[in-house]
């Protein structure tokens, strides 16, 4: 599974566990408007660290914080390069 697919699948999994309905997961989706709260994103980031072996949001030297889903996926893809 690609990094993008892993992330999308983890977002759907956490939304399902928390009984949250998600709209279309497009790259321009603003994360804070996705229907998931910060605790749910915290869970997603922790699980991605376990499955992908990295937490680029903590490790990031330049401190780029994701606003959209596209930013979020991009940070993980850049970290894997």
């Amino acid at each position, binding site marked *: 599974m690609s990094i993008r697919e892993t992330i999308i699948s983890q977002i759907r999994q956490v939304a399902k566990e928390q009984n949250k309905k998600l709209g279309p997961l497009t790259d321009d989706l603003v994360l804070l408007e996705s229907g998931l709260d910060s605790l749910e994103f*915290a869970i997603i980031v922790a699980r991605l660290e376990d499955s992908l072996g990295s937490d680029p949001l903590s490790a990031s030297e330049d401190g780029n914080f994701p606003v959209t889903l596209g930013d979020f996926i991009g940070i993980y893809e850049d970290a894997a390069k």
Partner: protein
Amino acid sequence: MLPSDSTSLREALINIADPSGCFLWDTKGSVCYHDLVRGSCLNGRLSELSGRSVLVATRDQLITALALIELDGVARRLILCPPDLTSEQLSSVFANAEVDAAVLDSSQPQSNLRNCITATCHSNIVPAAGEQLERRSTEWVLLTSGTTSAPKLVLHNLSSLTAAIKHSDSAASPIIWGTFYDIRRYGGLQILLRAILGGASLVLSDMEESLGDYLARLGRHGVTHVLGTPTHWRRALMSPAAREIAPRYVRSSGEIADQSILNALRFFYPDAVIAHAFASTEAGVGFSVEDGLEGFPDDLLGGVGDVELKVEQGSLLVRSAGTAMRYLGTGPALRNEQGFVDTGDLVELRNDRHYFLGRRSGVINVGGLKVHPEEVETVINRHPRVRMSLVRARKNPITGSIVIANVILKEEPGQRATANRDVVIKDEILQICRAKLAKHKIPIAINIVTALAIGTSGKLYRHA
């Protein structure tokens, strides 16, 4: 600190060079400092509140600010009531602070306030009656952020609350303050006092306003100094509206500021001073660090200015003119015999820098919400196969921390551990947690282990 000729907030306002250029703003409107110098917001009830122990319990922060300005130096005691108190917590506040008067805003019911007079405060300022009331040094009572238990009542006065505020804070170019904090707690109150003493405007938040809307409002007012917890900032930086402010000064305090949030703030606001500070309701302001690195340099220990810091048994202790006097009601002493406040925050020295490890009590801060590990362990231990458990924090870039649990299972004769059996038990434990615990307290991972570290006292090591 207070200018020497100011003994109350009202007098501090009188000393502002240009009060007509300073405002307190909220979502509904604004109040100009000039109008507050000789105005009243209490419907002519000020004299009735003179000498009383007054609970300030308004919905809006702006109304609280107006009441504090008018009552400081007049009331015997001011008790700042945060918006989220339960009725049980309010009862203990009434008893321990000897409340005999309350200031509300016009929207609130007054029926549940027994044995005390009530006055309504509003933002329509009318000229004050000019009556000569006895002036006194008012006691200020702040509540610690208790969870479910009764909050502690911390006694300050205006001198201790303003001890960390330097005259140089009134900078050459105008400051406009903004804060995600509520001014009814210590961190937010510091900002209100800085604004008043420094002759600067302040943009107040509103509990029903979204973070994005508050950021946009800060941007419209041209905010220069913005303060919040790392949790506030992590949320803010995920908002598109974070681009609508261009502050000169950005500060985090109230939780551990880790390197990732400091880096993120530096990246977002490259022209701003990025500071993080240590302060607590009891200890006052400990320090502010502006080098962009997490933790604080060892040479702060001993003393910087009026504040003395030291580390004892791993815990940070603070003594200064800004530390509170005592707790109201029964309870432990607030200061030790030398006058130091033990903050309960554990630090570790590495390469001439102290790094925060967490609370000695093991309390975990998940996005600003507290989790007592013992509460979660008690729930986990209900599973019949669990022998013992240890709940602890795992670092997280979104909420600061999240909860994880290590669990030792009881051995059952004839049953061998298998991966499949462990998955079933973990799932059952999580089901119990989901049924019994608030969402932020549920462990996001359960690890089945064969041993937990136990200290010489027989207690679990929470900071292994």
